[in-house]
């Protein structure tokens, strides 16, 4: 161990940033920010929590890079734009999807396919930001994603676990909202929550002694500086300790699942991430984002699609099967989102380029009416002909399904008004009546 090097490195950043990094490495968290009791949050948002015994939780599957609509949810059989991807039937008469979506095809009766999606952003970063926040990326403010909105407006249900989680990559900022509402990041689903156990040579008794000692040594300082940041860190520590000593910690452990179930989701980080997401929402975590990257197929799209689309299909199929079997699909909203579609015209490199004008997303579970397609593109999947859905509308639909009021205004610290879906309207006819 090169200790000298370590101490030298420690001199450079400020002690606080060092500590932040320490927290993120040791607790596996950037952290535990959001661990504040639900009641407190409800009080802050000025609303009593509706005491709904089973609020809707969200599994947000994000296809990073731009998912080709023609090869997945909006095929155009018999046209030039279709390319080599075959088309298959689903379990709903008249709804067809791309051939690699065969597991999903067995669940079309539970899903609402949105073929009228349309975005205004055609570059990854801006489109990604818009999809996650409903707002255009601008320099003067950073917007929160919908998971953070849920934490702000409704709060946690299970107060022992964090309420907003990103598995692998995802939208990690809490925007202008308090950092403790933002997502907890789990790097690798297979490893679960890192550093949440005591070191091997430390027992509970010693740990408690240490905590007591720290709090006694701390008294003078904490009393002298009663600042929100100090308070927030205190809360964070207390929540981290609660979690460390809680049974719920096992929620993060995928080894608790049988080999069969694990295989069902696919032995890749997206599949295992979806399984972890299922375990988390089962334990009333409010919002979990899992991403699948690799959709930016400017070249060799059909070979790459053959490898990638089945990963989505397998995990999504397993997830919908599992949520149904467990009886929690009606309180779980499954979202399939992406920043844009891909060009109908196949380019010279057998690829498809960015195409925000028309693409597809999917919603399932909660009070979404299954077995339907909303929106229609023209013969070449190039223009939305009916029921166009903007990004704001899409997010307003998610927010409404979860029970957020899309009219509720929350002020940023700079006193600017924001709403959860930037004035979007829920998609008409998508909910069960």
């Amino acid at each position, binding site marked *: *161990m090169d*200790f000298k090097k*370590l*101490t030298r490195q420690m001199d450079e950043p*400020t*002690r*606080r940033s060092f*500590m932040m990094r*320490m*927290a993120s*490495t*040791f*607790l596996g968290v950037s952290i535990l920010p959001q661990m504040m009791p639900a009641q407190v949050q409800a009080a802050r948002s000025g609303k009593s929590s509706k005491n709904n015994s089973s609020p809707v939780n969200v599994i947000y599957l994000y296809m990073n890079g731009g998912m080709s609509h023609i090869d997945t949810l909006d095929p155009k059989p018999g046209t030039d734009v279709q390319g080599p991807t075959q088309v298959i039937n689903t379990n709903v008469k008249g709804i067809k999807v791309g051939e690699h979506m065969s597991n999903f095809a067995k669940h079309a009766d539970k899903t609402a396919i949105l073929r009228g999606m349309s975005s205004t952003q055609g570059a990854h970063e801006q489109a990604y930001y818009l999809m996650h926040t409903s707002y255009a990326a601008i320099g003067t403010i950073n917007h929160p994603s919908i998971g953070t909105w849920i934490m702000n407006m409704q709060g946690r249900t299970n107060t022992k676990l964090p309420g907003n989680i990103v598995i692998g990559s995802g939208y990690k900022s809490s925007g202008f909202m308090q950092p403790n509402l933002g997502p907890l990041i789990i790097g690798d689903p297979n490893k679960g929550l890192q*550093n*949440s*156990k*005591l*070191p091997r040579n430390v027992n509970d008794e*010693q740990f408690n*002694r*240490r*905590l007591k*000692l*720290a709090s*006694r*040594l*701390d008294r*003078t*300082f*904490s009393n002298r*500086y009663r600042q929100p*940041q*100090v308070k927030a*860190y*205190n809360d964070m*520590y207390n929540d*981290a300790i609660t979690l*460390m000593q809680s049974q719920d910690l096992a929620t993060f452990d995928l080894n608790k699942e049988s080999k069969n179930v694990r295989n069902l989701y696919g032995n890749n980080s997206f599949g295992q991430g979806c399984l972890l997401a299922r375990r988390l929402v089962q334990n009333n975590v409010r919002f979990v984002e899992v991403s699948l990257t690799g959709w930016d197929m400017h070249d060799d799209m059909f070979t790459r699609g053959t490898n990638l689309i089945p990963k989505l299909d397998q995990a999504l199929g397993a997830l919908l099967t599992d949520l149904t079997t467990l009886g929690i699909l009606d309180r779980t909203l499954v979202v399939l989102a992406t920043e844009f579609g891909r060009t109908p015209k196949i380019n010279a490199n057998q690829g498809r380029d960015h195409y925000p004008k028309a693409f597809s997303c999917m919603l399932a579970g909660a009070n979404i009416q299954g077995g339907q397609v909303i929106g229609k593109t023209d013969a070449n999947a190039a223009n939305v002909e009916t029921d166009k859905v903007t990004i704001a509308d899409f997010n307003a639909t998610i927010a409404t399904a979860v029970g957020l009021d899309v009219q509720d205004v929350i002020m940023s610290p700079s006193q600017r008004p924001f709403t959860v879906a930037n004035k979007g309207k829920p998609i008409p006819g998508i909910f069960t009546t």
Partner: protein
Amino acid sequence: MNGSLLQRIMHPKSILVKKVKTANKGTDKLKIVWMSILTRNPTASETSLIQEELKKVSQSDSYQDIVWALINTREFMFVQ
């Protein structure tokens, strides 16, 4: 909180442990620990608190506890 850094700091060959070992008096040892972590000397009340603590458990254990406790104080986190 639970990571491997503390093990490194408390490693027999670490600078901190070596320095503490060379000090003879208990109060000098404390000064070294406080200086290393909080860059100030311990206050009288802190010194008495620690001396109380040292009576309870074995020496090596308690120094680990003290270092852990100091690193986990808000003072360490917030004072730059």
